[in-house]
């Protein structure tokens, strides 16, 4: 049996390829990015011509994958947790249409917000859409579950959600590899149930409700849900996904426990454990989803502990320390926190064009004491930190332009938006159209570094198209201004920013210079040729 050292993300990617994947559709986002990158460079995936090009956003990714499923082939959609919000419309409705070829949606959650703006738990989305959820506890399961998830998807004719967290996505371990299965052939669906007119949708929704008992049966029988029924102990343990490892690290596997890695919850196993213990404690990374459900399952008189009872922290990721503490086996520490220590926040790279953009913006903005600069998501969000401290907000991808518009509608002047090139095509274009249609008095800066920088320099969907997009959306040609963000051009850049702030309408300034990281990578590649 071949073994390979793989990141959780890589195990998912290889598992999908070996399950007969025909296409991955994704928009980058930590901690999910490496799945698609692995498929982009995997020899078998290249040989099979498996689709792996980046999508413009999570919604286009989800819909394209659904199209591939319609055509009979197996498709995978990958995103970080907040991507689920962007594709939610397509995702929830794909449970109503159902699937033809297997469809797996992978959401990588980021409890503790290592590189995110919230710690929403994607299992809520799975429950909301009423579809099965897989939650691997380790890299081997992540690999094995991809085949299981595609099979379940095709047998139930439903999309399947796979949920991982940062610590699994970005941790390496040895994985046993199986033979690669063949891809499905082209086999487009012929049934009309994909047309979700109310009459058809009602039938489809009933069908989805009826499938719930099959989903439950599958979860109850799943080899990934394991009951270890040990009697004579007060506390029974429920451990979901990666939490199982932290529990075993603290007290070992020979305890009364239900390990959960497939949903809906295996209710019989949980009731059985509850019947031989006086109380249950729930370990789950993310929000108290299972804790709440089990409370409902066992009734108010049964004691269920977890994040809601204060036995575990209400926020942040689980780790071996807070789990050990909740189990009463916390270790004594030998050393306290060091005295000579300071935080070291991430920074914009030396020579980065975003730096020159903020230098220029701050210079001009100082002339307008009431100005606000609405930020967006990307490397350039670091402009909120010293030394620049330029930004008033950062909420979700695209919100800079629309928030600037709303604030301008309210009378704020000058109202400025800063957005990256990839973020602009992800979710900024529609907002710009709103602003154009009302000739809102805003100045939009699309800081174009020719790449999706924050997530490691992936291709950016709009490269070389930004002027055309802005003109196409109706921005006046004389108010689409391109500059090169370099210190030597500071006078020109500040003059243009001033002119466009003074223009009473929508203007777009595009500072364009390649990202330092991708520039160095391209130079290295050239040298090695």
């Amino acid at each position, binding site marked *: 049996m071949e073994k390979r050292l793989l990141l959780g993300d890589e195990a998912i990617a290889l598992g999908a390829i070996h399950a007969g994947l025909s296409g991955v559709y994704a928009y980058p986002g930590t901690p999910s990015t490496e799945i698609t990158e692995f498929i982009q460079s995997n020899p078998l995936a290249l040989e099979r011509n498996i689709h792996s090009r980046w999508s413009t956003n999570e919604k286009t990714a989800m819909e394209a994958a659904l199209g591939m499923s319609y055509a009979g082939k197996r498709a995978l959609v990958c995103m970080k947790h907040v991507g689920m919000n962007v594709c939610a419309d397509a995702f929830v409705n794909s449970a109503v249409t159902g699937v033809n070829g297997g469809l797996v949606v992978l959401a990588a959650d980021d409890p503790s917000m290592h*590189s995110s703006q919230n710690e929403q738990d994607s299992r809520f989305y799975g429950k909301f859409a009423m579809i099965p959820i897989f939650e691997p506890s380790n890299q081997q399961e992540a690999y094995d579950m991809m085949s299981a998830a595609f099979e379940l998807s095709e047998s139930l004719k439903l999309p399947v959600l796979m949920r991982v967290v940062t*610590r699994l996505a970005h941790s*390496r371990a040895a994985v046993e590899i199986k033979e690669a299965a063949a891809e499905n052939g082209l086999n487009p669906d012929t049934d009309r149930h994909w047309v979700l007119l109310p009459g058809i949708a009602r039938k489809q929704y009933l069908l989805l409700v009826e499938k719930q008992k099959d989903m439950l049966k599958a979860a109850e029988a799943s080899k990934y849900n394991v009951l270890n029924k040990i009697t004579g102990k007060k506390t029974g343990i429920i451990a979901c996904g990666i939490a199982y490892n932290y529990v075993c690290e603290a007290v070992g596997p020979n305890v009364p426990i239900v390990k959960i890695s497939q949903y809906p919850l295996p209710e019989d196993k949980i009731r059985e454990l509850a019947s031989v213990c006086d109380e249950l404690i729930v370990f789950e990374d993310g929000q108290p989803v299972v804790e709440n459900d089990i409370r409902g399952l066992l009734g108010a008189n049964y004691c269920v502990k977890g994040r809601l009872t204060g036995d575990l922290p209400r926020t942040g990721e689980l780790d071996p320390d807070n789990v050990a503490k909740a189990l009463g086996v916390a270790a004594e*520490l*030998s050393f306290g*926190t060091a005295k000579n220590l300071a935080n*070291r926040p*991430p920074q914009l790279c030396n020579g980065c064009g975003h730096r020159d953009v903020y230098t220029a913006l701050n210079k001009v903005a100082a002339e307008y004491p009431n100005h606000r600069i609405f930020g967006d998501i990307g*490397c350039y969000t670091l402009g909120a930190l010293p030394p620049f401290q330029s930004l008033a907000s950062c909420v979700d991808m695209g919100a800079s332009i629309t928030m600037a518009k709303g604030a301008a509608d309210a009378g704020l002047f000058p109202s400025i938006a800063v957005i990256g090139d990839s973020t602009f095509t992800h979710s900024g274009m529609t907002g710009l159209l709103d602003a154009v249609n009302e000739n809102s008095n805003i100045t939009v800066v699309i800081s174009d570094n020719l790449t999706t920088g924050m997530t490691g320099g992936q291709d950016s969907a709009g490269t070389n198209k930004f002027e055309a997009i802005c003109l196409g959306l109706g921005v006046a040609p004389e108010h689409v201004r391109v500059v090169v963000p370099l210190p030597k051009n500071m006078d020109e850049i500040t003059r243009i920013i001033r002119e466009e702030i003074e223009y009473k309408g929508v203007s777009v300034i595009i500072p364009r210079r390649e990202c330092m990281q991708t520039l160095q990578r391209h130079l290295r590649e050239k040298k090695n040729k």
Partner: protein
Amino acid sequence: MKKDIILCGVGGQGILSIATIIGQAATEAGLYLKQAEVHGMSQRGGDVQSNLRLSTEPIYSDLIPKGKVDLIVSMEPMEALRYLPYLAADGVVVTNSKNFVNIPNYPDATAIEAELKALPHAVLLDIEDLAQQTHNPKGANMVLLGKVAAHLGILSADQLRNAVARIFQRKGEAVVESNLKAFDLGLNA
């Protein structure tokens, strides 16, 4: 036998290459391994760390509990201090002694050095100075790895050395040689 290691430094200093090489050596030696990395935001001039666990027995948690780390390996002295609560009573710190100052409130360098030297088992080495001697400033992380070889226990210096050669093989003979030279400088320092 098991060895729990924290590798740390500042984004761009090459701690992930150290992790890759130890990982390669551990795999060749048939050890169980888990290695949790930090990707994303923290890569740009911020602090980075990786939890590396090696064992002759299966490993459960990807993260190392506090108070259980056998070895902190750091490319930067203040970064070594960041993980003190993780260090076991008899744990060892092996760190670069040269400060990387990219924040305005960086603590006093002599105070950092004193706090490190007050630990029961701390090894400080100016790896950048040694790397200069091999005319390979980028090899500083290999110098540190060489120094670590003496404290790792679960893998021998030869096993690590072979892994260095294997990992750099693709980049040609000259790159392998200069990295091995850096490794040996650290090993014998």
